[in-house]
């Protein structure tokens, strides 16, 4: 299905004047051309002189219609369009929408109403069908459902394969009918390519820059889907390579995975995961958060140490005890604060300050002999000794806990 209107107009390139750019500020780029694919996604974005919204859609673009008149599309907060005469600024066409895309005729249709089919979310309304073409699938705003099964349905096991943006169009956006929001990196041609849906867990889009401004730093732009506010995170790409964990994976499972060399090496715990709830209630966390809010910093990092005296106060808070010392970072995304707590389980974790060697999974130090004493799965009775030191895996695991602070 091509992205052609009823008159055959198809947005292919853009030439515009200078505007403030959004995502890639600071990059010197050579041409004034923008290239789009048939469903309106930016393929080539070398100018960096336009303004973009949080979904990488341009706020203002122009093209030439099939009947020769120059028209402009101006996106609103939902990426939907209005049609403007660039010479007179007159609004030629405007449509308002309910969140799921039904037209809201709260204002009288403009007369004469031009035939322009790129409407809700900037997607093409296909003929008389009432369906929007998102590329991978058709969407029916009347029933708020896709007309086909999600090709990435296996990544959304808890959801109907026909659901639209997880039933929350105020928070999520589906750029092409395959999945909502996510994590992006640039391919060899410089185009943003979606590589995962991980950002969707907390309503943040992640854009990875391998070498930020030629510095060699790996930077990630984190964009709040609600406000479009952003912040920079160093090494975000590598962190997001971790495996997203389900809510029923708690501190005990994480500890056992470290001890027995099972489970993923890197884990990600998102949003309202019980571990995050526990972390966010601890006074060490709250003190750091209060201090951050009182500052004007856009980001801050803290070393949190529960050891040794805090054991007295953490009591039965086993999540805190399991984490012990960890790194805590706060990032402002507009009015919201994104928290990242990062911890690792290593031999150092349990031979605190002793001169021991940590082992990575790549070193293959899995169980080398059967344990000679029964091993408890509880931390409290874990007493490494000569008889079982080498029977355990004890290869490093890493945990990242990421959530917005309420």
């Amino acid at each position, binding site marked *: 299905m091509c992205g052609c209107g009823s008159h055959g107009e198809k947005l292919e390139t853009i030439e515009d004047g200078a505007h403030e750019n959004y995502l890639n500020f600071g990059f010197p780029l050579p041409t004034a051309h923008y290239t789009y694919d048939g469903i309106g996604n930016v393929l080539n974005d070398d100018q960096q002189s336009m303004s973009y919204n949080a979904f990488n859609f341009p706020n203002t673009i122009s093209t030439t219609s099939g009947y020769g008149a120059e028209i402009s599309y101006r996106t609103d907060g939902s990426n939907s369009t209005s049609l403007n005469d660039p010479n007179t600024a007159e609004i030629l066409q405007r449509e308002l929408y309910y969140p799921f895309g039904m037209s809201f005729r709260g204002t009288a249709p403009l007369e004469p109403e031009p035939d322009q089919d790129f409407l809700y979310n900037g997607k093409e309304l296909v003929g008389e069908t009432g369906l929007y073409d998102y590329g991978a699938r058709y969407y029916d705003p009347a029933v708020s459902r896709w007309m086909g099964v999600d090709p990435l349905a296996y990544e959304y096991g808890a959801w109907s394969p026909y659901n639209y943006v997880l039933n929350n169009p105020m928070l999520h956006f589906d750029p092409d009918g395959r999945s909502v929001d996510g994590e992006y990196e640039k391919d060899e041609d410089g185009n943003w390519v979606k590589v995962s849906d991980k950002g969707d867990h907390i309503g943040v889009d992640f854009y990875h820059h391998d070498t930020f401004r030629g510095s060699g730093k*790996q930077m990630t732009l984190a964009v709040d889907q609600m406000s479009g506010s952003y912040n920079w995170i*160093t*090494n975000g790409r590598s962190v997001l390579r971790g495996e997203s964990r389900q809510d029923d994976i708690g501190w005990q499972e994480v500890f056992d995975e470290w001890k027995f060399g099972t489970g993923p090496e890197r884990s990600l715990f998102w949003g309202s995961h019980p571990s995050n709830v526990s972390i966010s209630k601890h006074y060490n966390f709250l003190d750091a958060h209060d201090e951050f809010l009182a500052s004007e910093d856009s980001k801050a990092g803290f070393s949190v140490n529960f050891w040794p005296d805090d054991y007295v106060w953490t009591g039965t808070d086993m999540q805190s005890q399991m984490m012990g010392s960890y790194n805590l970072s706060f990032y402002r995304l507009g009015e919201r604060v994104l928290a990242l707590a990062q911890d*690792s389980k290593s031999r*150092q974790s349990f031979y605190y300050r002793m001169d021991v060697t940590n082992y990575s999974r790549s070193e293959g130090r899995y169980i080398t002999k059967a344990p000679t004493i029964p091993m408890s799965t509880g931390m409290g009775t874990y007493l490494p000794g000569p008889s079982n030191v080498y029977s355990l895996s004890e290869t490093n695991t890493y945990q990242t806990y990421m959530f917005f602070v309420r």
Partner: protein
Amino acid sequence: MIFLFSISSCHVGEKVFDGKFVVENYDYVPFITDLPFFADELELFSDGTFKSSYWGTGDYEIESSQITLDYKKRGSIRGSARFSLRYEMGRVEEIILFDLEGHVYKRIE
């Protein structure tokens, strides 16, 4: 008497913070966000300022066993980072970034 004079000239109780430090054990760092991932040199000056390839320049403040780096990077990023300190004989020897992985700034001067 000479012995007592020697002790007093050592400024007993006065701690030494300034100096030059270099990052060790940064190989694991791809896991951790916003910490140096190369052999960064951090120089703490006696006037309370610092210089580093990673953090840029800014002010530092020490409270007991912790140091806070207030940095202003190029562009709009402004932030701070707080780490634990390890002393030897009243002198800061290590700035601990991530203890479990031995990721530290170690004094070289």
